[in-house]
């Protein structure tokens, strides 16, 4: 596996009017902690409840209410930190981030500002060409989510739903180590895979369980290398933060648009103002939300209602012991068994897919199993709009089909038909093969008989083939037809050659 801290900039440059530019991308990902109750209250976190049904007095900011930390959320943050190979801080602080908004009932968000629970870590991202790049993690901290303002329910009223208010989020901040929109999307994809493997976030972007803010800047060629060497942000351009980009596709689009926009501004003699921008997925563009001058003064200070968050290393060690095999480790193991880096990274992208693959590949050739899964099973899932968790044919049944191909019980062609049968009708593949007579014919007697029948029916073709041996494929096809597709194609070829006296190369 090739891993580079700083991949070569081939194909990573954007051409402008005045020369080439580099894009530099950093991300802030909000991942909702998987927990039964909220970060500082006992209210439920179930998605889809009626508005304001999952709200305690604490979440609604009532007088005299006090936050009490949910230990499960702390454990989940530590678990995620371990999965990001990050430094776990045994002492961290909760701060108040003060601003007014109707869906922020306390008038402040409890977050972690100077002393987060998790420090520096890293994520390996997998690119299409099989290359892997290391992206640094700056920090992970715990914070409360806000509620939701609904402006489209009534002509002159706004409504507030506080179900989300107080739900625990992990804000995961990357270093500016990404260079293309593909890398940015790959980062989010990998992060999503890791938290899903860990069981710390369901990664459901449609329900808002994972949201990304993307920081984009552009600089002249060489600026990024200078930054990596010196750590000085001066060699990078001014960044704009694009808020709440909620799908992999939109991230790629938003980055592309924003980089182009910045290059145009600079090349037109302007300067980039540090600001927060919003991605409009309908128009495919970003637009200004608020400038640095309009930015809130959040007046952070330590929350006096909460003690510093402190725990022992032994507790962290105990959590570390329960970590599952993570995507990178699994990928390495898959590659050792013969898979290409690309196949391996596709399979580990979803834990359920990887688990399915592992059962499917038991005792059969790894590459064949991966191909069968990627081509046949995933193909059918996509066709039917299903996900791997809904697959109608078990991994064990597919394993049996692959075994039958290998021991020549059935041909590859019949195997696909067989999969179609069990896909729609169910049943044990071996029994279906028996019951429907789908077994491959290797019996030379039966094949010879079929050849004789085809010759007898087509005497003119025999002469043509003798003149042009390449036409023998027509005969093979006819014989296969005669045997209902069950004849072993290799056996048919050999028998034909002997019968028609064809040369070996043909």
């Amino acid at each position, binding site marked *: 596996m090739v891993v580079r801290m700083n991949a070569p900039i081939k194909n990573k440059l954007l051409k402008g009017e005045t020369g080439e530019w580099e894009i530099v991308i950093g991300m802030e990902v909000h991942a909702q902690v998987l927990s039964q109750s909220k970060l500082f209250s006992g209210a439920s976190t179930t998605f889809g409840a009626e508005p304001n049904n999952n709200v305690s*007095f604490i979440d*609604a*900011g*009532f*007088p*005299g*209410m*006090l*936050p*009490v*930390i949910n230990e499960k959320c702390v454990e989940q943050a530590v678990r995620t930190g371990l999965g990001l190979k990050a430094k776990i801080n045994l002492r961290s602080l909760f701060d*108040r981030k*003060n601003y*007014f908004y*109707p869906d922020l*009932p*306390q*008038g*402040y968000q409890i977050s972690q500002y100077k002393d987060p629970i998790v420090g520096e870590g890293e994520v390996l991202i997998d690119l299409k060409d099989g290359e892997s790049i290391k992206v640094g993690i700056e920090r992970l901290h715990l914070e409360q989510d806000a509620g939701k303002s609904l402006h489209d329910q009534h002509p002159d009223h*706004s409504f*507030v739903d506080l179900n989300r208010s107080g739900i625990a989020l992990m804000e995961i901040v990357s270093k500016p180590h990404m260079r293309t929109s593909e890398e940015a999307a790959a980062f989010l994809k990998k992060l999503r895979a890791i938290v899903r493997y860990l069981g710390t976030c369901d990664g459901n972007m449609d329900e808002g369980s994972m949201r990304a803010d993307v920081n984009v800047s552009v600089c002249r060629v060489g600026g990024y290398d200078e930054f990596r060497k010196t750590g000085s942000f001066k060699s990078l351009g001014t960044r704009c933060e694009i808020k709440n980009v909620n799908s992999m596709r939109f991230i790629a689009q938003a980055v592309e648009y924003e980089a182009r926009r910045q290059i145009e501004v600079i090349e037109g003699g302007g300067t980039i103002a540090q600001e927060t921008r919003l991605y409009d997925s309908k128009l495919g563009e970003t637009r200004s939300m608020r400038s640095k001058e309009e930015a809130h*003064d959040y*007046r*952070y*200070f330590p929350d*006096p*209602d*909460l*003690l510093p968050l402190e725990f022992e290393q032994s507790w962290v060690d105990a959590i570390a012991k329960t970590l599952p095999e993570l995507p990178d480790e699994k990928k390495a193991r898959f590659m050792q068994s013969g898979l290409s880096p690309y196949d391996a990274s596709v399979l580990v992208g979803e834990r359920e897919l990887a688990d399915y693959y592992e059962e499917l590949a038991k005792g059969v050739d790894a590459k064949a199993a991966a191909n069968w899964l990627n081509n046949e099973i995933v193909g059918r899932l996509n066709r039917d709009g299903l996900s791997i968790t809904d697959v109608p044919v078990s991994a064990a049944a597919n394993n049996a089909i692959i075994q039958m191909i290998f021991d020549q019980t059935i041909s590859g062609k019949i195997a696909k038909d067989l999969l179609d049968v069990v896909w729609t009708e169910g049943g044990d593949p071996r029994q279906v093969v028996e019951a429907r007579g789908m077994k491959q014919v290797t019996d030379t007697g039966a094949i010879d008989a079929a050849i004789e029948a085809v010759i007898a029916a087509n005497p003119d073709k025999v002469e043509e083939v003798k003149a042009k041996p390449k036409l023998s494929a027509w005969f093979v096809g006819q014989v296969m037809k005669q045997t209902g597709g069950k004849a072993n194609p290799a056996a048919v070829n050999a028998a034909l050659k002997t019968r028609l006296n064809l040369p070996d190369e043909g």
Partner: protein
Amino acid sequence: MSDLISMTLAEARDAIRAKKFSSRELTGAFVSAIEKARPLNAFITEAGEQALTMADAADKRIAAGQIGALEGLPLAIKDLFCTKGVRTTAASKILGNFVPSYESTVTQNLWDAGAVMLGKTNLDEFAMGSSNETSAFGNVINPWRAKNSNVNLVPGGSSGGSSAAVAADLCLAATGTDTGGSIRQPAAVTGRVGLKPTYGRCSRFGVVAFASSLDQAGPMTKTVKDAAIMLKTMASVDAKDSTSVDIEVPDYEKLLEGGIKGLRVGIPKEYRIDGVPAEINALWTKGADWLKAQGAEIVEVSLPHTKYALPTYYIVAPAEASSNLARYDGVKFGYRAEGVRDITDLYEKSRGQGFGAEVQRRILIGTYVLSAGYYDAYYSRAQKLRTLIKRDFEQAFEKCDVLLTPTTPGPAFGVGAKTSDPLEMYLQDVFTVTVNLVGLPGISVPAGLSENGLPLGLQLIGQAFDEATLLRVALAVETAADFKHSPAKWWSV
């Protein structure tokens, strides 16, 4: 039965247990006393009917032999404690007609012990004040008047409704909260006992927050013994308050016995402040002599950072308040301004009309000291000073067991006398704020009368979670002072 209301909490408790009278009789006496004392404006909400219902329930339990620590004893509750089903105002217009559907932990502890709630007492708005003049429900009048004077005086603050209620025999005891002196100062200027326990001793759950790292609930009583009884029930570790502390709550009443022989009493030299009247310093010296006479050793100690305490307090407390009071925005509950254009207008008008001048002043100060560019100069330095002040006390307590100081720089002053100058008002807390900054327990005990016949208090400061020793020394002061004075009940004539 007018004698019923002048009993101490301990006397009433023992009498009820001896079935000398019922809780209903006792409660009824207070209910009518409260009605007669309306000119004092001590209560924002009187809860007479509910009190009688609670008294009847207590009488039933007494008859059944189920007698809680405060069974059938009528109390007044500062209107900063949320009480289920009873309007809670924090003496602010902004809470409107807010009726909580939950009970604060401290008051729940009291009801669980059988106590009866007479009503909710007046206070400075959001507990911000030292004279009870910032209340949106009008100021409270001190039951005490100076010799040969009809001038209305302030009852101290912010727990001025509670201090007036205790001093005027409108309850057996009351709850208060103390962020910078709000229990001790009003107790001192009304001639009664006020105890601020160690930070974390009483749960803050359900108490409307002013400054979270300083706020602490405590009892306001007629005697030291009553304070010991009240604290035992009010204090508890609480899963709903992360800053409450899990340290055993001893039987303070039992631990009052034993005297103070051999105890070392520290006199902090920095508490001799220019401009403080001679009679205050004279009383302080007298207090030291009383303790010495009972076998204590008097030692001079130094608290070198004392002069920074008041400025530190007036950074930390407003900073926390500016954030704590952000939730009162007209959106979810309480007061909402009419005729607003948009959400910003709603915030500005609701908060502008809903908060009084002093609260607005502190929100502005707090917002300022936390702002980008000023945080390091103010909030950050205040936190460092807090650490230094804490170290002062740690070093002082190597040489002594408790500290003795005056509680206030003078007796009760006239209504309106200090309202035009906030700084002069803030000086009322000069002896008391330090204790809040370091979380230690402090108690004010009535020790004598000023030249013009008004009560003065002495303050004792104890070590963290050692309220038992603090109360024992307080009892020694109380015994020696033999303060038997009560205000003439001019309002019910």
